[in-house]
């Protein structure tokens, strides 16, 4: 019962400058989303590390299972043809 009085955990994502993705920087506790943004500002951007903040309740994140790593990600390794270096380009051809 005591437990429910505790503030939930939030994951914090920060865009460090215009043009870049939001990046996960850590977590914190807050009672609501507004407070989570405020706290993230004070905890994670004291040295102008960001211009935009996302907060997500930690328990809303679904993660892939590390034991599925092989089946999820290894098949992509064999598809070398997705990478430009797979292809031979004759000497003298540029801008490709």
């Amino acid at each position, binding site marked *: 019962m005591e437990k429910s009085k505790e*503030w939930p955990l939030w994951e914090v994502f920060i865009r460090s400058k215009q043009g870049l993705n939001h990046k996960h920087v*850590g*977590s914190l506790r807050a009672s609501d989303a507004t*407070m989570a943004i405020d706290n993230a500002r004070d*905890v994670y951007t*004291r040295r102008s590390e960001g211009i935009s903040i996302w907060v997500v309740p930690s328990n809303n994140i679904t993660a892939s299972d*590390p*034991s599925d790593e092989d089946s999820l990600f290894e098949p992509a390794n064999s598809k070398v043809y997705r990478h430009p270096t797979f292809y031979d380009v004759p000497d003298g051809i540029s801008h490709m």
Partner: protein
Amino acid sequence: MMEIDNKELENKFQQKIDRDIKIEPNDWMPDAYRTTLIRQISQHAHSEVVGMLPEGNWITRAPNLRRKAVLLAKVQDEAGHGLYLYSAAETLGADREQTIDDLHSGKAKYSSIFNYPTLTWADMGAVGWLVDGAAIMNQVPLCRCSYGPYARAMIRVCKEESFHQRQGFEIMTKLAGGAIEQKEMAQDALNRFWWPALMMFGPSDADSSHTEQSMKWKIKRHTNDELRQMFVDVTVPQIETLGLTVPDPDVKWNEVKGRYDYGPIDWDEFWQVVGGNGPCNKERVDARRKAKEDGKWVVEAAMAFTNKRNSKKSA
């Protein structure tokens, strides 16, 4: 059957570590690795937070506006460090409130340096310079620690630490070059913090129980004595630059070994302070417990408010 599985998992785990692949929260890890990390990270977090108190003691008495702002920003950073580290511990399943309660009940430890009192303004110099200096020495190798969230937290912490030591050294420089009272104040602070700073690296290797396993797991990269020696080697010349005296008559440059020799550490004092008999152990833990108790109604109110709003929304 289970046993064989675990052995195999453990081998795979160690191979990953040997190849410098980071371990992430959901990855399989031996229970002992998890417990060791939880203990180390939460002790580290407690040290950051308890560490706010000795310096916090002088914020209201800082001698000018610039020093007041700098010290305040520095102590605030330590709160941030505590938070990053509690977050890292939470990724291992350590509940922050439980961890903090362990500190308040005396079950969990923190760096014993913070059980010494800060008696003069010069202590702000000595703490920033020596204590943060020693902490940086400990923390830089931790940026390469095998556990991802801990390593990432340490990278952030180390970036922020760099100004802490400098502001401390700046205070010392001012004092050492100032009036006689100021110079005396500086020497006195150095005298009181020198040995406790050396003790910050922990018991000597011969008496350190966790070192070997922790090095194998790459939670630790250097032994306590190696780090302590590095600290002495960089700090002694700084003391000389300040024109102060090293409070250890045995400190001498050793030409053969290419490093400074130093005198024996009073390990009895160390164990006394760790065991609760330092000058401020009780005050430090009491202050943290009081902050939590005084804040309990605030934390509850905010949660009650959120719950009310949420139920209004869904109604």
